[in-house]
Structure formats: C-alpha cells, structure tokens
C-alpha cells in the first residue's frame, strides 16, 4: 500500500464569476521515503493540490468537489477538523516558500519549535527543550542553543527556512510537503537547503513532495515527477525518464526554454502565448492554444492520461506521432 494515494481529486473555489476548478481529476501515489516533484507555473494548481492534502484551504470558498486522499489507508477528505489537526505534524507537515511570513514574529524560534511538539506529545519542559534543540542542530543552525532565544527577524532567509524545516520535522512526519522551499533564497543558500532536505530524508525516511517551478530543483531532488498545467496533470514519469524523453509538448517546452550553462543557444525556445485565466480555460486540451503541434481534435475533448511505458503517462492525443 502506498503512503499517499490521491485519486481523481478536484478542488473548486466559489468566486464572483462562478465556481472555478483550481485542480481537476488529479491522481497520483507516493511511497514511504520517496521524493515526488510537482512542477508547474502559476495557476497550474500545484499549491492547491498541496493545501487540499493538508486540509488547509478555507471551506468555503474552497470545496473538495470530487475524489479522495488516502493517507496510510484513511481518506483525509472525510476527516473532521480535529482529526486533521492530529494528522498535521506527526503525519504530514509542510514548509512554505516565504519563511518570514510563516514564522510568528513575536515568539522566539525555540518557543515555536517547542510549541509544535507540545501540540502533539506530552513531554516535560526539559524534554521539550532538548528535542527542540536537537531539531535545530539537525537542520544546521549554528550555535543552536544560543539561537533558541532569537526572534525570526534576527535570522537570515536561509536560517529561517532551516527553522521551518525543524518545526516541520519536530514530530517526525511520514510525509513532508515543501512548497517552493527555495524560491525566495539565493542560489548558494538554495543548494544548502536542498542538500539538507535530502540528508533529512535519508535520516528520517519520510516521503517528500517538493513543489517547484524550477526544473533544476526537480533534477536535483526528485525520484518521480508530475507536470501540471492549468489545474491538470499532463505528464508523470520517473525523473531521469522525464528529462531524457519528455512526451507532452508542454514538458518539452518547459525543458527547452531554460537556458543551459553548458551549451550556447542562438535563441531560446520560447513557448508562445500566456497561461490561461482559470475562468476562461480553452476547450479540450488546455495547452492547445499555445502548442505548436495542436490540431483541431485537440480542442474537441480533454485528452486522457495514457501510459506509454511503465510509470510514464502523458495527456496528449498526438504523443505517438511526435
């Protein structure tokens, strides 16, 4: 049994312009200790997928319109708020892009790590302190004992993201969801944080979902990759396979439009047009209006996800011809 089994998940938002489906028919599984990359641009639905799994979307306006989220065999979409609270922490934990807004500015970082542990485990003050200190040391906060008393504003962006990881991992979750964890960080700090996440996975054996728009971050970390576009999964593959033989024209475009450090290119291979407005998505394949291979049949119906090789699926009716 997979640790996480998401099937046909659809999350809708009530808006002034009617109900908008932020994600539609999203299905994937994740095993213990596995790292799944979810790649997409703005409006692809990657963050909504994560927040739906975490049960962190305000309902209303959000609503799980269809599908299920089996975590360790139990359907999270049927859980009450209190049961979800018990899952968040020891079951599933999350780190966000902007560590400054995720930390409380008026509490010390030591207090914030201890608070998370206290919410789930009955420990003496001394044991709480020891566990919090241990976590801060594990994530590489220098002179952690002294930094326990620091406030978030006294730390750099990279150190704050380390503290967020310490909080997320304090209750030893089985699944960590990291939503653009290095996007706000400089490249030398990004490399440190990605290394750290891989080290922590090796040590604790938790599964990780890493959400990013950066193909390089996926190449560095993921075992398997989902590519999302305009609310739907368009391709799924083991990571090496995706980079070697991308099937969907959108995935190909994403890989091609990033300038390479190794080779010189006369001109970048741009994807024409812009991302569709969620309220006015094109009929049929949502990428069809930007796709250089589109034919009239592409706008007729949503292409289903089809398996082309074991573990490699794509939603494009022209894959076999391209």
């Amino acid at each position, binding site marked *: 049994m997979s640790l996480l089994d998401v099937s046909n998940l659809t999350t809708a938002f009530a808006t002034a312009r009617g109900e908008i489906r932020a994600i539609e028919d999203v299905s994937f599984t994740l095993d213990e200790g596995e790292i799944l990359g979810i790649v997409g*641009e*703005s409006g692809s639905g990657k963050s909504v997928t994560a927040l739906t799994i975490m049960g962190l979307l305000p309902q209303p306006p959000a609503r799980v319109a269809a599908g299920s989220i089996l975590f360790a065999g139990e359907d999270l979409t049927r859980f009450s708020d209190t049961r979800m609270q018990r899952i968040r922490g020891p079951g599933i934990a999350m780190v966000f892009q902007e560590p400054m807004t995720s930390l409380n500015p008026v509490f010390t970082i030591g207090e914030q790590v201890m608070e998370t542990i206290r919410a789930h485990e009955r420990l003496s003050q001394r044991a709480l302190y020891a566990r919090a200190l241990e976590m801060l040391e594990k994530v590489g906060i*220098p002179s952690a004992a002294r930094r326990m008393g620091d406030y978030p504003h006294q730390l*750099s962006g*990279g*150190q704050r993201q380390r503290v967020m990881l310490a909080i997320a991992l304090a209750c030893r979750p089985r699944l960590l969801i990291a939503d653009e964890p290095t996007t706000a960080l*400089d*490249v*030398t*700090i*990004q*490399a*440190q944080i*990605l*290394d750290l996440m*891989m080290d922590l996975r090796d040590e604790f054996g938790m599964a990780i979902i890493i959400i990013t*728009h*950066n*193909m*390089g*971050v996926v*190449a*560095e970390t*993921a075992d398997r990759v989902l590519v999302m576009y305009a609310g739907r999964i368009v391709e799924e593959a083991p*990571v*090496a396979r995706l*980079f070697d033989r991308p099937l969907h024209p959108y995935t190909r*475009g*994403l890989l091609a*439009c*990033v*300038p*390479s*450090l*190794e080779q*010189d*290119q006369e*001109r*970048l*291979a*741009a*994807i*024409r047009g*812009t*991302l569709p407005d969620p309220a006015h998505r094109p009929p049929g394949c949502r990428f069809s209006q*930007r796709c250089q291979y589109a034919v009239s049949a592409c706008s007729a119906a949503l292409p289903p996800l089809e398996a082309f090789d074991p573990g490699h699926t794509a939603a494009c009716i022209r894959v076999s011809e391209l």
Partner: protein
Amino acid sequence: MTPLVEAAGLVKHFDVQAGGLLKRRTLPLRAVDDVALRVLPGETLGLVGESGCGKSTLGRLLIRLIPATAGNIIFDGADITRLTAGELREKRRGMQIIFQDPYGALNPRMSVEDIIAEPLHIHGERGTRDTVAEMLSLVGLPARARERFPHEFSGGQRQRIGIARALVLHPKFVVCDEPVSALDVSVQAQIVNLLQDLQRELGLTYLFIAHDLGVVKHISNRVAVMYLGKIVEIADKHRLYANPLHPYTQALIAAVPAAHPAARSRGRRQRLAGDIPSALHPPTGCRFHTRCPHVMPVCREQEPAVTEPAPGHQVACHLAG
C-alpha cells in the same frame, strides 16, 4: 573601443539608523564600494550576485537614477555626476531602465498609451499617437492594447509595456534590472528573445542584472560578479563560466541546480557555508573571506587588488595575484 559608459571609484553609501533607543546612531551601508566598470557600445554586460550585493544599486547609479556618494560616470562623453538638472535631462534620453516587477512599475490608473507616451511628454514632444502605435508593434503587443490598463495584462505582457516605455526615447543604454525574474518560466524566454531582437534592431547597449546564471550567460557578452558592494571578477562570458578564478564565482556556478538528474550536485560539488554578511559590517580584508573555502591569513587583513591574469579577465583575489 571607447566605452559608452565608464565608471571609476564609484561609491554609494546609504545612511542607516542602528542601535536601540538610547544608543541610536547612523551607520553607512556600503551598497557599492569603489567600483570601476566599462560598458562597451552594443554589448550586453551581465551583472550577477546574490541579494544585497549592490547590483541593483550599481545599475541605478550608472544612469544617475540615484546620486553617487563618490566617483564619476562618463556616459557618452560627459561626466553625468557633474551635470546640472537641465543638462542631465537631455542626457537621460539616452539612458533608460526596465524594472523587475511588471506589476509595481506601471501606474495602474494610466492607460497603456499614456504610460508609453509619458517620457515623450516629459521631454516636450507632441504628436505621440503614431509613436505609441509603433512602440506597441515593436514589442509585440496588439494596437488595441493602447486604451487598456495594466491590470488587464499578464506579467509577460506588462513587461512588454515596460520595455516599450523604456525604448520610446530611443536610448543608447538600457539597464535591465532582473527583467524576467518575476515571470513564469515559459514566458521568460519570450522576453529574453524580445530583448535580444530589439538590441540587434536598435543597436542598444545593455547592463543586464540578474541572479539567474543561465539567463545571464545566454544574453551577455561579458559578465561581472558582485559580492558585498564590490566587483570581484569580470570576464568574457565563455571565459568566466569555463574558467572562473574567484572562489565566489566558482561557488556561484557550482550552486546552479543540475540540468539533468544524472548530474546531481549533492555530495559532488563543494558548497559555500554560511550566509552573506551584512553590508553594515562588511568583513575586513577580502569581503568573501568569511565564506571562502581557500581563505589564507592575508585575506583577513588585506583587501585584494584587482589583477588581470588574462586580457579582459579581471579578478580581485589574493590567490589569483
């Protein structure tokens, strides 16, 4: 070749309030500290570095969007640090800037036509309607865009409006300050291609500021690397990426995520430890010595001089000297 822009001894200090209520004092934040730089006509000079290194401040100094604390900047034959306001206005037609944030850089209450025509009005030109139409077509926007407002456009389209505004006065030199960083990846390439097309068509000279080393390598002829207010290395792009001499440049290139999972860097590339120090209290000697894997005693005491180990390749490091 005579440079289009030449800066020497350029310094910019910002006064920052520091200390508590009782011990309040003013400290100079050395955003740009003794920088010398030449930009050649028709080239793209890339400027890279991490947040807080002073790259945006340097870009703004070079077109005198902000005044320098010390140093001179020769632009097109005149020292723009010494010009009167009237003389500067005339020179300013020749130097423009494209900003990072296409959402914040456009006035939401102005129509696209008014945004693009505003620089012309400031410079006392009339009959701007045709010029605006010409600019829209130049940056790949439909003519009907003129009556619309910034919020009706996507990020990439807004950046096109920002480019049209920057080019309407036919400048020679354009500072591009992270022009694609806020855009989605699939849209970034469109804007990079557009900037390159416009450069070719109009003979523009660019200072291209970015933190993405791949984009900078693609678009630049030469690349300068900044760290804590100093340029630590500058060279032809192929030379810089193939043979970086400064340990900071080496670390920056090593930190770029792999292009393929088979080339994963974890455990194989040396990582920089620690964070960028505060520009309020820059380290003594070489400013990179607190993070440098090759640090020597001399690095803590003495600031390294700029040397030129190969023609056009300059570096400020005791190891390279």
